[in-house]
């Protein structure tokens, strides 16, 4: 919402400066977005008087002028044809910035003669396009600021424009008068009274109006009248200047008047060219399928139930939103039908949204126009038409009635203190409400018709506090909900999220935060991309679906980094992924990705290509940090985006997968344009079972005094027998005595032959209550060998 200072002063008697007004508006909740004050740039320019003007000795068109200025008599060279002795001019002294020519004036020599300043034209000061000569003022004293002179004699030229953001609850502030009322309540001036015009029609209105009975709820009130014999054409300069100042294009007097009321009183109006209206006007709901070319020169088709205004030939106007082109007024309109009506805001919102029309009228009607000003607005606008266009007004035609929104709430003066924490005397509270238009009857406050937002006692508190200014609010300590040391507040999942994040960062990964949405093809590669997770109105096709997994986002991040020349990457993300489009169909995931080498080439030769066992170790480290059980099994047959033979699922039993690690499938890398190798891990922290025991005490530590024995074994196996199988078999040989089994060597092929491998393990045997004899150790060893051989079909390497 834009308005000028002088427009505001039509309604507000004030001596406040524009800065004071702007500050008060923002504080009142009418947040100022911009103040443009044309006088600011003009302030350095001062009035001067030309004493003499002689021809320049070396140039016919230049004059050497002696000018009385604020800085005494100065010599100024001027090329304007009207530069002559005796005129009052606008002087830019050296150092002054001249906006129209984007130059700062310097002392200079023009053809050998010194010049100490410049006399300005209107264009140089961006006042108008006038540049035939320098400004000649009819009055003004030497040294007086030109900005002050303009404010006094041509206020429109230096009228500051204020733009404010209006929150949806304040439709009353969409009219300059409503803004003035707030400022007056803040005591920044007094609200000027307005004349309520009453025009007696001199003839019956030839156009009748009606509202269909089934439409009265959506369109309760319609008033109008004909004004015949008007003279349309360009509106007066003051009106044009106002509209231009707030960014509107003047069109014709009649249209400009409707725009004036829209912004002055938040009272949208419509004017029909009466000559082009056939028969009476009828307000009704569209049946569906009717069409109209509106004033924006676009054609609209209506859905059943949308409210329109029709004449004998069909739809002529979209109620409360936009008029139709066929009945619009033109320069030559002689008889005009003026409409002032009130429409149900919800209806306007839905119809406007459906038709995608953003007009000033819709904007206001959907937020709420004063329902009590419909008829009076018609009268006031009629007066303005008669004043500016002449003509003769008919009697008013009226259908329906102004809806009754009258309501009152109890003003509880103590509520302001208990809810806001500001102690404001009751007298002040009542005065604020009255200044805003509330009518107080005892402790009941009757809400003014232009404030649809006030719907309860809390709103009265809001108004009182707002007018008093929330800057007066003093902080008041809030006691702890419970005395003493605060209780821990993080949930188990929140703690797991943080531990996973910081463990991965400690392992050398960089945390990324990628968008929750991703393109359909990428989502489809990861079992997503269906309609269940489709966003109806994405901002681009790159962001059309909710991510089914974190890996595609990280792969895209890897691709972007690779294209910037960064190919050795360790990225991770902790966040939600979406298995469906219903609330709650989201799961916490931790994913980490390694690409390229472990680091740049280095002098120690320690950098190498990343591989599956890097991510396996990191996955195990994170799971350990999260408190997952140490005993897990590795299964294969994970999702299709892993390399089929080079990934493993970390499981608690065959059905509970805590995470997966492995190489990303080469096809996925190709599809997503990522240069390999790329290995990744994915963990599901919520899958880790909660610890069974909530006690902080650790189990007792039992330390054996007896020396442990280690024995090495090597088995020759089929190359696809997994180490896990060998380890489990060996452990099973004696569950009490075998403390640990470790694989320490693997050798494939060679002398063993194709498809064979040798796997070497160390078994640590911990005697429990007595030292083992060689015989006993030998017996255990035998059992280990037979268990492993039995389980794997392999044999002890001789």
């Amino acid at each position, binding site marked *: 919402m834009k308005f000028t200072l002088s427009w505001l002063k039509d309604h507000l008697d004030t001596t406040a400066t524009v800065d004071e007004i702007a500050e008060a508006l*923002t*504080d*009142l*909740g009418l947040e100022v977005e911009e103040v443009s004050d044309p006088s600011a740039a003009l302030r350095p320019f001062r009035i001067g008087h030309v004493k003499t003007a002689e021809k320049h000795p070396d140039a016919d068109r230049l004059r050497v002028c002696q000018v009385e200025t604020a800085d005494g008599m100065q010599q100024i060279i001027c090329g304007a044809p009207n530069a002559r002795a005796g005129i009052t001019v606008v002087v830019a002294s050296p150092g002054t910035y001249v906006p129209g020519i984007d130059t700062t004036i310097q002392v200079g020599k023009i053809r050998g003669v010194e010049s100490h300043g410049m006399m300005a034209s209107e264009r140089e000061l961006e006042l108008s396009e006038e540049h035939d000569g320098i400004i000649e003022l009819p009055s003004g004293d030497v040294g007086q600021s030109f900005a002050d002179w303009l404010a006094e004699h041509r206020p429109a030229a230096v009228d500051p424009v204020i733009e404010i953001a209006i929150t*949806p*609850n304040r439709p009353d502030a969409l009219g300059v008068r409503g803004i003035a009322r707030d400022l007056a309540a803040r005591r920044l001036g007094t609200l000027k009274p307005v004349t309520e015009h009453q025009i007696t029609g001199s003839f019956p209105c030839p156009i009748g109006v009606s509202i269909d009975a089934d439409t009265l709820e959506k369109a309760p009130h319609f008033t109008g009248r004909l004004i015949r014999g008007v003279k349309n054409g360009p509106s007066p300069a003051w009106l044009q200047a106002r509209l231009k100042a707030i960014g509107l294009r003047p069109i014709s007097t009649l249209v400009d008047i409707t725009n004036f009321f829209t912004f002055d009183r938040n009272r949208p109006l419509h004017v029909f060219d009466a000559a082009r209206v056939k028969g009476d006007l009828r307000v009704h709901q569209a049946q569906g399928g009717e069409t109209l070319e509106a004033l924006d020169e676009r054609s609209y088709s209506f859905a059943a139930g949308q409210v329109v205004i029709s004449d004998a030939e069909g739809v002529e106007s979209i109620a409360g939103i936009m008029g139709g082109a066929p009945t619009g007024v033109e320069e030559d309109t002689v008889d005009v039908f003026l409409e002032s009506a009130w429409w149900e805001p919800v209806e306007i*919102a*839905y119809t406007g949204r459906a038709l995608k029309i953003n007009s000033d009228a819709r904007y206001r009607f*959907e937020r709420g126009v004063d329902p009590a000003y419909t008829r009076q607005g018609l009268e006031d606008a009629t007066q303005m038409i008669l004043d500016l266009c002449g003509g003769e007004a008919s009697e008013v035609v009226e259908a329906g009635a102004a809806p009754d929104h009258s309501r009152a709430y109890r003003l509880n003066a103590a509520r302001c203190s208990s809810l806001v*924490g*500001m102690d404001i005397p009751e007298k002040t509270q009542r005065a604020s409400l009255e200044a805003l238009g509330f009518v107080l009857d005892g402790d009941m406050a009757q809400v003014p018709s232009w404030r649809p937002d006030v719907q309860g006692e*809390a709103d009265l*508190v*809001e108004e009182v*506090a*707002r007018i008093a200014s*929330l*800057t007066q*609010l*003093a902080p*008041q*300590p*809030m006691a*702890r909900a419970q005395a003493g040391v605060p209780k*821990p*507040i*993080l949930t188990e999942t929140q703690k797991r999220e*943080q531990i996973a994040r*910081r463990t991965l*960062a*400690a*392992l*050398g990964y*960089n945390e990324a*935060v990628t968008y*929750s949405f991703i393109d359909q093809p990428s989502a489809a590669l990861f079992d997503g991309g269906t*309609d269940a*997770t489709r*966003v*109806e109105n*994405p*901002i681009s096709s790159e*962001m059309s679906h909710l991510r089914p997994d974190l890996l595609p986002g990280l792969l895209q991040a890897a691709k*972007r*980094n690779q294209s*910037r020349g960064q190919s*050795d990457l360790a990225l991770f993300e*902790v966040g*939600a992924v*979406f298995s469906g*489009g219903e*609330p709650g*169909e989201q799961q916490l995931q931790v994913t980490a990705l*390694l690409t390229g080498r*472990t*680091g740049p080439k*280095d002098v*120690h030769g320690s950098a190498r290509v*990343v591989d599956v066992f*890097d991510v396996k170790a990191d996955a195990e480290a994170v799971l350990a940090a999260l408190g997952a059980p140490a005993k897990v099994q590795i299964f294969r047959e994970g999702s299709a985006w892993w390399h089929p033979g080079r990934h493993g699922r970390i499981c608690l039993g065959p059905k509970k997968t805590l995470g997966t690690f492995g190489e990303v499938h080469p096809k996925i890398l190709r599809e997503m344009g990522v240069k390999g190798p790329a290995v990744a891990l994915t963990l599901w922290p919520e899958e880790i079972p909660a610890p069974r025991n909530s006690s902080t005490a650790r189990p007792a530590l039992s330390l054996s005094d007896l020396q442990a024995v280690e024995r090495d074994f090597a088995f020759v196996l089929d190359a696809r027998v997994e180490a896990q199988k060998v380890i489990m078999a060996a452990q099973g040989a004696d569950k009490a005595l075998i403390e640990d089994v470790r694989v320490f060597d693997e050798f494939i092929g060679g002398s063993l032959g194709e498809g064979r491998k040798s796997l070497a393990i160390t078994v640590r045997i911990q005697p429990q209550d007595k030292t083992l004899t060689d015989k006993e150790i030998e017996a255990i060893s035998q059992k280990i060998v037979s268990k492993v051989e039995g389980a794997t079909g392999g044999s002890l390497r001789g």
Partner: protein
Amino acid sequence: MEDLRDTYLTRIMEAGDEAALEEVRLAAIGKKGEVSLAMRQLGKMTPEERQEAGPRLNALKDEITSAIAARKVALEDAALEARLAEEWLDVTLPGRRGGRSVSEGSVHPVSQVWEECTAIFADMGFAVAEGPQVESDWYNFDALNIPGHHPARAEMDTFYMARAEGDNRPPHVLRTHTSPVQIRAMQEHGAPLRIICPGRVYRADYDQTHTPMFHQIEGLALDKDISMANLKWVLEEFFSAYFGKSVKTRFRASHFPFTEPSAEVDIQCSFEGGTVKVGEGDGWLEVLGSGMVHPKVLEAGGIDPAQWQGFAFGMGIDRIAMLKYGIPDLRAFFDSDLRWLRHYGFSALRVPTLRAGV
């Protein structure tokens, strides 16, 4: 005998290495060494002669033995010196990085600030509540006093989820704010209640200062007598702890459908030289929206507005991260540029705590 002593002590001193020293030892006190042979002659002497020569020979043997040991240590020391003089490394070469870490890992600023905020609010008794990012339009709008026709709905640039043919429920939305979590928390826990709700939110907007996804933190405190003055105190305490210096706030009247009265909150700052410095100067920067929870919102959460009242506020995590850590561009938060992650990220072990300062 004096000759013998001089000869051998000189030879010991002159022995250049262990082999030469061994040769001298054998020549002097080895089985057939001169001193040993001389001692063997003792038996043939008279008792008087023996009494005189015996101790002298023993002393000589001891002296030679000690001299050899001393010389041996000296030779070893010299050898070590010589070896150490050879053993030189260019210690300016880079160290060997353990494991396979490409470099220092890092925690994203959004995560760091998440933890900073929760640490501060936890101390004031606020728990952390979270909720689904796909929300029903009831939780995202209606329950927050934003009915279907409300202009705020259009202004929020909402992302809607696609609806299957024949499914006539209103479409779900990607939550436009973390406020729906308020409603869920009220329904679950009732009053009194103190929670913060951090999380991802979505709006269909993309330019220099907007991304379609960003992070918000919402606060809610309900009790019998909580006022807006308490809110101001809580926010000033929070900002002062967060920025590590005293920060004043300024409240301005505003409007949000879910609070009444509502206020925009500015924090004190200076704008000198194009950089924003919080907690100094006399400028103000808008950072959050807040107010007293609207009675209709309490009702939607199943809480009796005649009994309970309280405040709510919401601010951008990314935005306060930018302010605190001088990060210029919001869009870069989600671009995962390795250089950015390393520059603006945080060390794994820098866990924010109140005792160390967040």
